[in-house]
């Protein structure tokens, strides 16, 4: 088990990580969620031994990191957020370096490199220079570089940043395969859908503090709203006054501006939907379609922190 106990880290006067504690069981996939600057990467840096905590401790399989750093590092694979690759070298040469860093050489290194390339679907590109790879291929090779020493624990720092949906799916499949092989994964992201799809449990971190640590289902249960619909309007966007009047209706927990219309959340959609349609008619707004909307982890995050997970405006009005 990976145990994070009361971790603290300061940069000058700024507290980047403030008393963070959570556990990750062997074989479990845990998502570390939070907006940019929440403290995810700093937490991961301390777990991987890149940064020394100002307080608290990290242990894996009962061994403290600061007492057995090199031994524990052999059990951990890090996939950094920035691409950790030499563009001017081939995929194979990169893997030879990374394997060598963990003491691998000869046939063992070749076998591991072949396995890693096969896992990420780049076996046929082993001799090509990384410079010619697409963004998605580089991301997959970046993951392969962390697998050579067959680590028990894989730390992935936003491994899908800047890749197209197709490559993201390929990466998800790679991670799912690692999960099937029994690897323990700790995965930072600010994409809720990624965490929802991959993770057994999610730790939400904001302003350096853990604000939730639960399964996806458990997090949903924290929301008052259990249903949502998306009302598409002929004339969009709508004014704040319209959103406020909808949110004030009985049973409606939130009215959120959405591209093309309004997202309405309510505990009992059957009763509340008619009231909402009637209210919109009073404003002279014509509804062109009604689609079912699912409450997402984004909503959970907003409910927990009061602000959006990703950068950008969110207009949500709650009663």
């Amino acid at each position, binding site marked *: 088990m990976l145990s994070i106990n009361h971790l603290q880290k300061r940069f000058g006067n700024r507290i980047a990580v403030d008393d963070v504690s959570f556990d990750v069981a062997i074989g479990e996939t845990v998502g570390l969620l939070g907006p940019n600057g929440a403290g995810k990467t700093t937490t991961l840096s301390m777990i991987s031994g890149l940064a020394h905590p100002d307080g608290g401790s990290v242990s894996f399989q009962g061994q403290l990191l600061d007492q057995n750093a090199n031994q524990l590092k052999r059990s951990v694979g890090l996939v*950094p*957020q920035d691409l*950790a690759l030499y563009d001017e070298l081939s995929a194979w040469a990169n893997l*030879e370096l990374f394997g*060598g*860093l*963990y*003491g691998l050489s000869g046939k063992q290194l070749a076998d591991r490199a072949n396995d890693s390339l096969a896992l990420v679907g780049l076996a046929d590109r082993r001799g090509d220079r990384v410079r010619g790879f697409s963004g998605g291929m580089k991301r997959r090779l970046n993951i392969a570089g962390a697998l050579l020493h067959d680590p028990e624990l894989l730390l992935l720092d936003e491994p899908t940043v800047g890749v197209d949906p197709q490559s993201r799916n390929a990466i998800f499949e790679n991670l799912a395969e690692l999960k099937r092989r029994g690897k323990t994964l700790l995965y930072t992201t600010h994409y809720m859908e990624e965490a929802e799809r991959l993770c057994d449990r999610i730790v939400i971190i904001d302003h350096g503090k853990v604000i939730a640590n639960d399964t996806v289902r458990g997090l949903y249960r924290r929301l008052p709203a259990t249903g949502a619909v998306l009302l598409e309007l002929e004339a969009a966007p709508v004014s704040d006054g319209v959103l406020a009047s909808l949110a004030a209706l009985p049973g409606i927990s939130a009215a959120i501006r959405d591209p093309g219309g309004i997202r309405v959340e309510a505990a009992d959609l059957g009763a509340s939907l008619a009231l909402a349609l009637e209210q919109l008619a009073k404003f002279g707004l014509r509804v062109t379609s009604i689609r079912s909307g699912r409450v997402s982890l984004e909503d959970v995050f907003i409910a927990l922190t009061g602000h959006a997970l990703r950068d950008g405006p969110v207009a949500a009005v709650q009663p």
Partner: protein
Amino acid sequence: MNFAAIRALARNDVRIYLTDRRAVIVGVFVPILIAAFFGYVFGGNDRSEEAGKIPIAVVDEDQSGVSRAITADLGKESLLTVQILTRSQAEERVRAGKVQVAAIMPAGFGNAATRALFSGRMRPQVDLLIDPSQSMSSRVVEGLMAQYGIQEITREAFSNDGTSTSGIQRGLSLPYVIATSRITSAQNIPYNGYAHSFAGMTVQFILFAGIDAGVLLLLTRERGIWQRIRSAPLSKSQFLFARTLATTLISLFQFALIYTAGILIFGVRISGSFPGFASLALAFCLLNAAFGLMLASIGRSASATRGFAMVVTLLLVMLGGAWVPSFVFPKWLQQASLAAPTRWAVDGLDAMTWRGQGLSAALSPVLVLVATAAVCLAIAIWRFRWED
């Protein structure tokens, strides 16, 4: 000790160096071209009289009034710095490049020259031992010797009563002959003007490779690769050792290629001690690796460090006599430039190539280079930021 990690890191640096073929070409062929140019321009054409005094030695085996007077005249000459030495001391000084010319007046020179002034027969021989790289200096000394020789011998001849003056009717002639010997440690080694310029350009461009190694390390720190290296079970000392090993190997590769071209195309010869030459090459390449590592340790960013390092390197190269031989420097600068390790490297390589000196002549340069490398490494280890 994680030897596999050290090997992997070193191999990776060598790979990256070889991958950039343009940099390899610049690092190997440009110094060859520049060395060829300087060798052509400076080869055997010493212009030191334009910049400072010519250090010469006078060996007075005659100790006659004439020879003493000539020695005194040469000593007053503004173009020269004169040392009075024995023949063996003079040979050693010329061989080591400490003096550029030695003039030897043999026993009986004064009397024989005075008699030969009128008769033109039985002229004594003055030996001029010259540093092969300083042939212009030897001509200056030859001219001054003729000027002061005629002056003093004539004075001696006309001051003696009863001396025959019939010879005047036949006209005066130079009353001695000059025999010139080029002095190097080994015998019959023709001087090659390219040898010095190859030493200088090799030193310069290997230092450039050292800068590149330092900048590569700073760039590595700025990329995600640094996190991957830091997350591996690797210590700071292992990492620094691997980098030193890689840069030393790259520098030796570059060194070997440049000198191979010098030997095959331009006739440069390692006329001195080969172990001495190899030791110097290794010591300088080690210094270069340490220099690059020190730059990476004290530099904040790759771009700023590159600019600063280029200025420092060019200064070191100039002081080392890589562009213009150090003997054309003013005296004070010749002394000051001994503080630059490049001066020791260039002088050491000169000693092992065209000067043909033995292993002992490589000892001091090697010690200075290794000591400087140790200082650079100590600074690098002290200042290197491993944990940020």
